[in-house]
């Protein structure tokens, strides 16, 4: 009530007009974000000739046929989906568990190297994986782990960004008195971590598990360097393969179906969990 009175006094545009402009821009921007996925969904339901014949905003009836054609085609898409799922899920589990453990070590204990290790992890947080990719594939070659999921999963244990997020969350949500209390009750350090700290960290674990899963699910650069047998390829590699094949020979209904197959599972999970995800974005990145 009060704020309206104050607003009326200022010499800028009236609040009603400003609100109108804001809504118009927001609706346009939302359209810009969603339009592509709508076209994708429509085209995934249409036949190749319908798609070639021009754009239509109406859904077709070819959804199931396109799906069957894609599954029966030359690209091992179901296999790719399973591979992507295994790698992303394992990475997410390892990443959140061990990042929480690392953050716990820094948060709870006092030891000589603590400050140096903490500073070091923060310092290397921004270094992109691409700059060590050469050494990485040489290492994978020496370990004879080409076409193996291990080099794509195990490195998730050392994730500075997730560590940092967990540490931030602990600062606000894990009082040291709680750890002391567990000690007095006779719980071992490892047990305290697993049975008391982990459940307490659930909200941040959930957010980071989703982020790690999605990052791994979407990752193209590293898997493409390591996986080259059909049996182990992940979805992004198959997409790239689809792109490099002679485009016009393809049934476009299948192409759209393949893209939809890679994108929509993430969209559905996101829509279910969006409250936590959007809320979690700001916490880890901005200090203060």
């Amino acid at each position: 009530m009060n704020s309206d009175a104050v607003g009326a006094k200022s010499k800028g545009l009236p609040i009603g007009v400003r609100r109108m402009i804001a809504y118009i821009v927001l609706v346009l921007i939302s359209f810009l974000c969603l339009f592509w996925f709508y076209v994708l969904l429509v085209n995934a339901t249409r036949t190749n000739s319908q798609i070639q014949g021009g754009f239509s905003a109406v859904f077709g009836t070819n959804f199931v046929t396109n799906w069957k054609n894609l599954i029966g085609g030359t690209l091992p898409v179901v296999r790719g989906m399973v591979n992507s799922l295994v790698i992303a899920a394992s990475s997410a589990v390892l990443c959140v568990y061990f990042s929480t453990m690392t953050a716990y070590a820094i948060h709870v204990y006092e030891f000589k190297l603590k400050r140096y290790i903490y500073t070091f992890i923060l310092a290397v947080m921004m270094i992109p994986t691409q700059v060590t990719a050469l050494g990485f594939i040489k290492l994978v070659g020496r370990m004879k782990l080409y076409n193996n999921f291990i080099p794509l999963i195990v490195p998730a244990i050392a994730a500075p960004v997730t560590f940092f997020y967990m540490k931030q969350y602990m600062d606000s949500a894990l009082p040291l008195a709680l750890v002391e209390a567990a000690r007095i009750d006779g719980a071992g350090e490892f047990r305290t971590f697993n049975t008391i700290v982990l459940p307490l960290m659930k909200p941040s674990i959930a957010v980071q598990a989703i982020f790690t899963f999605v990052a791994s699910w979407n990752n193209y650069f590293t898997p493409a360097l390591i996986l080259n047998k059909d049996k182990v390829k992940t979805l992004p590699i198959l997409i790239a393969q689809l792109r490099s094949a002679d485009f016009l020979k393809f049934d476009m209904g299948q192409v759209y179906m393949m893209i939809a197959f890679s994108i929509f599972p993430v969209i559905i999970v996101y829509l279910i969990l969006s409250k936590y995800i959007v809320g979690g974005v700001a916490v880890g990145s901005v200090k203060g």
Partner: protein
Amino acid sequence: MRNKHKAVSYNKWGYIFLIPFVTVYIVFQMIPLFTTIYNSFFENYMSGLKQIGPNFVGLANYKALFASGDIWKYLRNTMIMWIMGFVPQIFFSLLLGAWFSDSMLRVKGQRFFKTVIYLPNLIMASAFSMLFFALFSDGGPINTILVSLGIFKEPYKFFSHVWSARSLVAFMNFLMWFGNTTILLMAGMLGIDSSLFEAANVDGATSTQIFFKITLPLLRPILVYVLITSLIGGLQMFDVPQILTNGTGDPMRNTMTLIMYLNKHLFSKNYGMAGALSVVLFIITGILSIIVFRATGDRQKAR
């Protein structure tokens, strides 16, 4: 005495809990980094079917890298496409962040709008690029719509013109990142003491004045953070132009980025050049990281 004993017996667990992280970091990050640097001093590539090297050549790879001029072209491409995406990204993020956090404007449906603008950030970049390639291809839906609306007489070849191809890459980067930036900036704006806004209101400041005189200066640390992290992200630009152009960086390698160049060397097993390029990228991102580190560190100290 008892306290001291306690401290010793518990604190060794700090090291024990750090073992997994440190081990994996050393094996999968540190050793590869040193191998990468080491390889940058060796001549090591395939000439046809013949393996050349590895022979120690000192800094010859670096000389060759900078002498060929390709690296400058690709650096330029990367920066151009990053700026083309970053300018609208920061503009809309500031605008939307200001609207969302404005208590007088009371925008309804914020949850919906935030969910929608963040959505593209989670989409598989390679699939999203494949989608854009299909949509913007010569016979694709976008061309069909543009021709039927009478905007173009015949389909526009988006991927054959330098600026339309670059614009598409930049536009996709914009779409994928402005939601993320909006949320970050909004968090920063909500953290500003609201009494400042109230005081400005009482003094009769317009919302534009409030934005430029109060919000923007106080947001500076977060803006620096967003700028530098986005720049580091921009230097890593790969998936979108790689899939859109099928790795060629066409037209005429004008959308080829630094990481696409690195990827090329890695696939052709030219490890010497790949090493030199990696080291250069490592140094650039290292310098940028230090700036972020300093900026965020100052803020922590200030609190």
